[in-house]
């Protein structure tokens, strides 16, 4: 058997689109119960009957992260809260958090999506799967947990961090597969080497699912080489449940996005029109198999393109390419989503600092250079304390520790027009 659900995964495009239309109409009926969509549908005269083809999706306005924030916490719910069984929320560092609600059926479907992905890369119920994602609100934890359990794999919720312990689990339990952030995979390999563990000789690892932060093909090849595994790129976002939205198959050429769960659009972020197939644009997703909180035409802000043509694996679901960046200025580092404005807010609290700063991202490190203000004091211990205090406040805000470097006035490039505050040296 090659497929988790052969019938759905290899369905003809015509049948798949017919299924999508049916699911979309159903979703619109459900979404009418959400205060947010109810208002929009009324304003735009949308009912499930007015959607007669997938093309009619265009009649529905986009939904944005801002909408989710403005309707925090339960304004997007399409079923009574009593029928919801799970809530995931973003950290909300740039404003209100976003909340995603799930019914029991939603969770079951989500687990199925993840199980389908895992099966696609060759994982079976005989595998031992160790999840190094953070658990709790971060969807990469529970999302993979339930998916792997549905697949029937023995699942180890190791959670994030404590590399020595991760290694002990890998060797003691005979872990065959990991879900891991790319930058951490490299780190894990380093620690293995330091501990004299040869992954090929001393572990049973054969597959890793890498995701939650952008990475290049070179990085994938490096992880494969370092750990002696096949590494598959996975895509998820909390608004779309979490992991399992799209996943590479064994061809490792683009991620199949499950079109019985979402409708995919790629738009020009400026004109908001569809781009021709194959061109890069912003990924817009509509959930069509979710009841607690459907999202219609959700702007992900992720830039990608559809890979045209049939996939040799036989799956008919479209493939999306590796992400090319963001249509906003969000930085994804170590699985954490950050906005430069968060950093700016912290820096501007210090009167000792000027207005000019530069964020540099390299591998899994963030360096922040910031110019001193006129209030520069020549006392070295004061400067040291200042550096420490800024770093501490940044860590509280970002949940990771950046390297802070004070620089003199005029050291950073002068910003004209739209300031370029972020230099991302990572290759995607």
């Amino acid at each position, binding site marked *: 058997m090659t497929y988790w659900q052969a019938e759905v995964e290899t369905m003809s495009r015509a049948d798949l689109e017919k299924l999508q239309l049916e699911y979309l109409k159903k979703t619109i009926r459900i979404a009418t119960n959400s205060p947010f969509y109810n208002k929009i549908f009324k304003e735009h005269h949308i009912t499930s009957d007015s959607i007669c083809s997938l093309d009619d999706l265009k009649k529905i306005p986009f939904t944005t992260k801002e909408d989710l924030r403005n309707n925090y916490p339960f304004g997007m719910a399409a079923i009574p809260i009593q029928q919801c069984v799970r809530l995931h929320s973003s950290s909300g560092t740039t404003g209100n958090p976003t909340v995603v609600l799930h019914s029991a059926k939603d969770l079951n479907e989500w687990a199925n999506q993840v199980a389908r992905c895992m099966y696609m890369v060759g994982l079976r119920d005989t595998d031992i799967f160790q999840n190094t994602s953070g658990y709790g609100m971060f969807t990469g934890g529970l999302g993979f947990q339930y998916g792997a359990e549905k697949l029937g794999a023995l699942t180890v919720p190791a959670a994030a961090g404590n590399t020595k312990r991760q290694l002990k689990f890998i060797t003691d339990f005979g872990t065959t597969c990991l879900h891991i952030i790319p930058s951490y995979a490299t780190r894990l390999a380093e620690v293995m080497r330091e501990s004299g563990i040869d992954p090929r000789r001393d572990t049973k690892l054969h597959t890793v699912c890498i995701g939650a932060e952008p990475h290049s093909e070179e990085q994938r090849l490096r992880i494969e080489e370092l750990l002696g595994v096949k590494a598959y790129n996975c895509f998820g976002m909390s608004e779309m449940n979490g992991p399992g939205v799209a996943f590479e198959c064994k061809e490792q050429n683009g991620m199949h996005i499950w079109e019985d769960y979402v409708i995919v659009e790629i738009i020009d972020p400026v004109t908001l029109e569809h781009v021709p197939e194959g061109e890069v644009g912003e990924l817009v997703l509509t959930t069509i198999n979710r009841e607690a909180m459907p999202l219609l035409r959700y702007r992900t802000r992720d830039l990608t393109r559809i890979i045209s043509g049939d996939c040799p694996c036989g799956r008919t679901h479209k493939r999306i390419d590796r992400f090319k960046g963001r249509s906003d200025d969000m930085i994804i580092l170590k699985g954490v989503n950050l906005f430069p404005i968060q950093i700016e807010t912290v820096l501007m609290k210090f009167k000792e600092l000027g207005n000019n700063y530069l964020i540099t991202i390299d591998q899994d490190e963030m360096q922040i250079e910031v110019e001193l203000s006129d209030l*520069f*004091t*020549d006392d070295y211990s004061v400067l040291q304390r200042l550096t420490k205090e800024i770093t501490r406040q940044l860590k509280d805000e970002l949940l990771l520790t950046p390297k802070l470097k004070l620089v003199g006035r005029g050291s950073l490039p002068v910003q004209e027009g739209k300031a370029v505050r972020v230099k991302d040296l990572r290759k995607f």
Partner: protein
Amino acid sequence: MTINQISIFLENKCGKLSKVLSILSDAHIGIIAATVADTSEYGILRLIVTNPEKAYALFKENNVTVSKTEVLAIATDRCAGSFASVLGCFTEAGISVEYMYCFSLDGKSILILRTNDPVQAYEVVKKHKLEYISTDKLNNI
């Protein structure tokens, strides 16, 4: 009694110090004493110059990260024990030295001192009748 020291924040980058020095040189401002406190990331250049007000204004104009600090300049004889006896006066009054450096002027050793308590330090100088260098004197070098 105190004199103005010019402090400059310098990144550890080639050419930073030389830029600062050429600003002074172009304005014909002389350096009487200089010291650098350095860390791996940056240095603080401390200068005693012939015209601190002008130097400060010029650095500001040229977008150099600069500050003025009042420091004591105590003149001591060039003989064994003179340095120790000056510091002894401050220690006796419970004053700590944050940093210090020396230079030579008219056959005397000049100690530049930055203390944790400038007001008390002033009293100590008066009480022990320590010889100090004034801004006027520096301006006439």
